């Protein structure tokens, strides 16, 4: 034999480390990640022996080489591949801004406990966006380099200003003849006002409906009050109508976790499953909004939310085993970041943060905000994330403003304390609005940050499950594609 097996194995000190970070999952288990988030599980002893150069486990060394965590000195290929993968992960950065939120009215007939913005006034003129404002906002939106634009109608309850929704859709399509972008429209609505006219319009323009469904009836109605106390029924009826008329793919639901939700994760999932909704997005409500407004729902801590999340995830996995292909959306976003080089484009989990470059919010009055949370913060008196106004700010004014660039710069995880050395940095993102609101600076002290605690909790939960359960590992692989 020309080349013995031993000659292709690694002798002691026969390798060098490639950039890697680690996190302790349990007393006897760590996860190593490379620059682009590929991971390998090791024991503390294994890590020490790999760092020291004494490891004799050729199988482990082979897996580390394949995952670009170690290389033989002089090799160029691992570095070339890491660079290609890194560049691939970042390739959507120049394609700002994908999501444009139009707050067409602040009026709403619901009074949801966790809502920070809606108004109960009946006077249309006070809190409705005008066509003039909308047109100017569209002009700014079309300045974005992104080849895809998602226009999302929010409020209040956007269907209370349906004529403007219709107008903006038509106007955007007209303007797009010149730009040739890929346009997508979404209405975030509580569905109580859905009627045949609106359904017909959505069918014709292929509008996607996003609604709120907090869980079973008592839970949902407890959170989301409206005259008639039938928010849940309205939502469910609306969902079914849209599924029937537009197709199951055209409607999705989001839930907001409140104190009342904790302990009822499985029921919430089952409610979604019962309605044929495939995706569930288990997310917390913005805690700082709560704390400052004191509007019920209480301040549940991250630990309890993580228990809730784990229970919900378990229920979803169980349903999958029974042949019901449900997806937990947060986990699927993280799966993409862990297992592929694709950018899922989720504005709340990117570095730099998605403020401005991922999403822009045009308020009913023409004020422009870097994110929806930034708008809510302004409702509470803090206008830090107001970038300008459609009425006299140019595209350059808003995108090059200090108001945007300062928090953006400070949101880059590769240069934030603790984030820079965190094993999960490739999976995570930044939330300058949250950190500004709770800690007074855009970067925040991550050891004290609920944002960090929550995300670390989810990452470690997912990784442990992937390590210990081949079925879950396969599920994450499916969710990632």
């Amino acid at each position, binding site marked *: 034999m020309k080349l013995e097996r031993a000659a*292709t*194995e690694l002798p002691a000190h026969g390798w060098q480390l490639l950039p890697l970070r680690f996190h302790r999952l349990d007393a006897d288990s760590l996860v190593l990640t490379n620059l682009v988030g590929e991971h390998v599980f090791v024991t503390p002893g294994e890590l020490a022996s790999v760092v020291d150069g004494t490891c004799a486990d050729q199988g482990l060394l*082979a897996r580390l*080489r394949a995952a670009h965590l170690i290389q033989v000195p002089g090799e160029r290929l691992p570095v*070339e591949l890491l660079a290609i993968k890194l560049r691939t992960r970042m390739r959507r950065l120049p394609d700002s801004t994908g999501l444009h939120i139009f707050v067409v009215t602040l009026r709403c007939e619901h009074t949801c406990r966790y809502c920070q913005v809606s108004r109960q006034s009946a006077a249309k003129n006070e809190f409705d966006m005008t066509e003039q404002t909308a047109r100017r906002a569209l002009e700014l939106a079309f300045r974005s380099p992104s080849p895809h634009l998602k226009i999302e109608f929010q409020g209040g309850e956007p269907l209370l200003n349906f004529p403007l929704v219709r107008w903006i859709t038509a106007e955007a399509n007209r303007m797009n003849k010149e730009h040739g972008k890929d346009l997508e429209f979404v209405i975030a609505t509580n569905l109580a006002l859905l009627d045949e006219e609106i359904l017909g319009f959505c069918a014709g323009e292929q509008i996607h409906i996003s609604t709120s469904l907090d869980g079973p009836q008592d839970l949902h109605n407890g959170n989301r009050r409206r005259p008639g106390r039938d928010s849940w029924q309205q939502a469910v009826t609306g969902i079914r109508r849209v599924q029937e008329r537009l197709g199951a793919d055209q409607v999705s639901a989001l839930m907001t976790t409140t104190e009342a939700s904790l302990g009822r994760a499985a029921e919430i999932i089952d409610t979604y499953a019962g309605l044929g909704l495939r995706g569930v997005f288990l997310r917390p409500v913005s805690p700082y909004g709560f704390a400052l407004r004191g509007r019920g729902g209480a301040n549940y801590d991250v630990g309890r939310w993580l228990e809730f999340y784990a229970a919900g995830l378990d229920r979803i996995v169980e349903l999958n085993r029974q042949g019901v292909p449900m997806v937990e959306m947060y986990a699927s976003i993280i799966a993409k970041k862990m297992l592929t080089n694709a950018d899922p484009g989720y504005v709340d989990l990117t570095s730099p943060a998605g403020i401005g470059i991922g999403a822009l919010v045009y308020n009913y009055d023409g004020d422009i905000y870097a994110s929806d949370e930034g708008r809510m913060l302004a409702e509470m008196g803090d206008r830090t994330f107001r970038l300008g106004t459609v009425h006299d700010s140019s595209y350059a004014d808003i995108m090059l403003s200090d108001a945007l660039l300062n928090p953006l710069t400070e949101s880059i995880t590769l240069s934030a304390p603790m984030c820079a050395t965190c094993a999960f940095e490739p999976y995570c993102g930044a939330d300058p609005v949250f950190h500004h609101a709770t800690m007074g600076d855009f970067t925040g002290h991550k050891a004290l940050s609920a944002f960090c605690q929550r995300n670390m909790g989810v990452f470690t939960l997912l990784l442990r499950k992937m390590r210990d359960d081949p079925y879950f590992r396969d599920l994450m*692989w499916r969710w990632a594609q």
Partner: protein
Amino acid sequence: MLKLIGRADASGLARPVAGDVWRVCLPGDADSDRSAADGDAPASSIACLLRDRQAAPPGYGLYLIAGNEPRTRPEPPRVSGTPGPMLRLGPELAHLDASDIIHVSGDGRRVTVLWKNTARHNALLLTEQCDNYCLMCSQPPKDRDDAWLFDRARKVISLLPQDARALSLTGGEPTLHEDALIGLLEHCQQVAPQLSVHLLSNGRRFADPEFTRRYAGVGLADIMAGIPVYAPEPGLHDFIVQAAGAFNETVHGILNLASLGQAVEIRVVIQRHTVPVLAGLAAFIVRNLPFVAQVALMGLEMTGLARPNAPLVWADPAGYQHELAAAVDILATAGITTRIYNHQLCVLDRRLWPYAVRSISDWKNDYLDICRTCTVRGACGGVFTTSGNRLSQHLRPVP
């Protein structure tokens, strides 16, 4: 199974046969007018195949009397004198037909079929030299000057019928002869641009950006490089191909090809060493080489070096279905076109049947006696005749 080499009775030859590569035609074929459309095919390259009692039209450089299959035609064809050199073909070549391309030895006594027009796959051997030395190599490298193989291939390509669709170029390692290969590809682009070309290569020469530029510069519309990768890291791959540094060069080569928009197929021979890393290799391909046109997972052909190395490389397919299914799942879920070659359906997990392709070349495939009662024989590629009796212990008819 088709015989590609056969004897000929050259007793009627007065002198050595003039050319060596010939396209076969029948009397009355469109190109029996030798002066017509075939710009590149001089009269000395078309051979007329005569069957029983057929008159020999004048003007051909060579006449072939069809071989007779003893079972169907006990009497040899009766043909009166021919207006040019004549060979009587032996029974192995009874299958010879129009548009086949053959090589005739100088003395006329040996005929080799280089291109079988009705075959699923046709391959041209370009060299037997190779800079790898795979443990399971079915075409063991020979270190001798065989540049004439390129010349012969060039002639075959010149003679290809208009309806020729696909051609494999194999070795050894074709890229060891850079100029000859580029020249051959350019020739192909000129005379047969519609051809779908499959170049089998270990990919190492493509680590040279200049060579890759030359390759891409030929401008063939449909050419794919089929490149083996046996592990997700150098240690195991280099051992299997018996060449230190091979993995890094091969993957560099794949990256270079991709950066110039060239199609790449990754081929993985499933053998004892690759079974345990199949899933890891699949994940590596998805993460690092997601642009590949397809991945071919291939069963062993137990010939060449695979025979003396059988204890090192043999793995019964029935024993690795779990690993194979895991690898296919990883690739297919990620949207990468995946094919399973050279596996009998009876030893393949049923979930994998949609990925199985009848891939064994006509000239070396066969079925066992037990296959007669198999309900899926028609869809199955059978076994390699070249593997002899080194086959799975678990072959049985599917009920």
